[in-house]
């Protein structure tokens, strides 16, 4: 699996930050529907990219193209140097490097929190049960749930479930984390705990792509904000640039809408 090795860009890693996500010219059709119309998304190491946009703009679809939960109709997706759309790529191996967190948590209800976190460690990463448990407990500790290891998802609050879902992804030591509206299904008082975990992940230097409506979080945690509409990236820039002085009419309209 030679294409899994690290690839330094430009031969000099100190000059340019290494890219962990290189998605270029992504198109996605659902039947007659053209959902993504040639989107480029580059994410460097340690970078947090935040994607906003109206519903149906293609943000979630773009995110799902990054780990091939959706198959792009055209374009290339290279994650940590691995071409995901290459037929020779072992997609299951590559996906360990790409953590994903879903709006509806999607925890396995028949397993404990620790069981949820350790399943892929044992089955995909090939860890022994003891080693997987050790790594799993460490991941749960990182999201502040060390004391909930033996609980089933049904016994946890929504915020705790989402943090277990984050632990499940980070336990595999991904190179990039994809968040698909991670707080949209949560009661308002539980949102803070999940954002807190995301903030600490960010501080640890994890590259992240976040689709969310949490503009406050975007403002103080994002390196870059992308505004998508109708399958294209309309505008991107620093949070200050996008939120305070957007140049495009569509961005302005959207920003003023979500303010009110």
């Amino acid at each position, binding site marked *: 699996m030679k294409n899994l090795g690290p690839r330094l860009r430009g031969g000099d890693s100190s000059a340019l930050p290494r890219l962990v996500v290189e998605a270029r010219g992504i198109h996605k059709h659902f039947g007659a529907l053209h959902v993504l119309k040639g989107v480029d998304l580059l994410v460097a190491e340690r970078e947090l990219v935040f994607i906003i946009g109206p519903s149906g703009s293609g943000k979630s679809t773009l995110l799902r193209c990054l780990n091939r939960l959706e198959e792009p109709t055209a374009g290339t997706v290279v994650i940590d140097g691995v071409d995901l759309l290459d037929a020779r790529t072992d997609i*299951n191996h590559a996906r360990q490097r790409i953590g994903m967190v*879903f709006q509806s948590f999607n925890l396995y209800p028949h397993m404990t929190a620790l069981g949820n976190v350790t*399943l892929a460690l044992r089955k*995909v990463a090939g860890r022994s049960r003891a080693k997987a448990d050790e790594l799993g407990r460490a991941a749960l500790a990182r999201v502040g749930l060390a004391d909930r290891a033996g609980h089933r998802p049904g016994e946890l609050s929504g915020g705790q479930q989402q943090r277990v879902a984050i632990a499940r992804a980070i336990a595999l030591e991904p190179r990039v984390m994809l968040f698909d509206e991670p707080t949209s299904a949560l009661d308002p008082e539980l949102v803070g705990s999940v954002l807190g975990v995301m903030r600490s992940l960010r501080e640890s230097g994890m590259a992240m792509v976040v689709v969310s409506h949490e503009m406050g979080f975007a403002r103080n945690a994002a390196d870059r904000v992308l505004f998508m509409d109708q399958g294209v990236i309309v505008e991107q820039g620093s949070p200050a640039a996008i939120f305070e002085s957007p140049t495009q009419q569509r961005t302005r309209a959207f920003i003023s809408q979500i303010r009110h």
Partner: protein
Amino acid sequence: MSNWERFVDAFFNARVMARYFPDIAYGTLVTIELAALVIVTGLAAGLALALLRSLGFRPVNLLIVFVVDLFRALPPLVIIVFIYFGLPSVELSPSGFVSTWLSLALVLMAFSEEIFWAGITSIAKGQWEAARSTGLSYGQTLFNVVLPQAIRLTIPPLTNRTIAITKGTALATVVAVHEILGMASSAVSNSYNPSPLTLGAIAYLILFLPMVIVGRWLETRMTWKR
């Protein structure tokens, strides 16, 4: 002889019961053997078909649906008679035991395939996506994430269906299998007294009541909070 005495003599004649107890006990063993074979092979085949169907090859799935509908529609007795009296004309002569086993296993396969399939499809798409996003393969997801949940959901309908079909082992009496009902019937003709039928009924209760109770216990044990 009062009516009551006549009733007791007919159905609870101790002498007749003692006389034919060994026959009924033997029949019970045959029924157990037949039932165990039907349950194990029928459920295994049903699960295998459901798994095959989950792969989503259209021609294969059409065939599965056809076979399943066929065996759900045909009365089990018709299948038994068909196999026992029909197959010899193509140089196959399955015994009554094998005919009954095959027939009931096919029927249980058909019903359980539908139940397993319903269970598999009822598992939310998000479960598949979460598992696949962590690198689990299709098969690993199916066996570690989807099936454990699906099988829990299917236990109540599966238990009911399994009991209903397994009771059909009594149909084997038509093709001369020496199971409970067969032994009881011949004991009745030999003794001119229906008491062996009472023994047979008791044997069925001893066999199937535990299944009903275990099914109920599994139902409560296998649920979890969502």
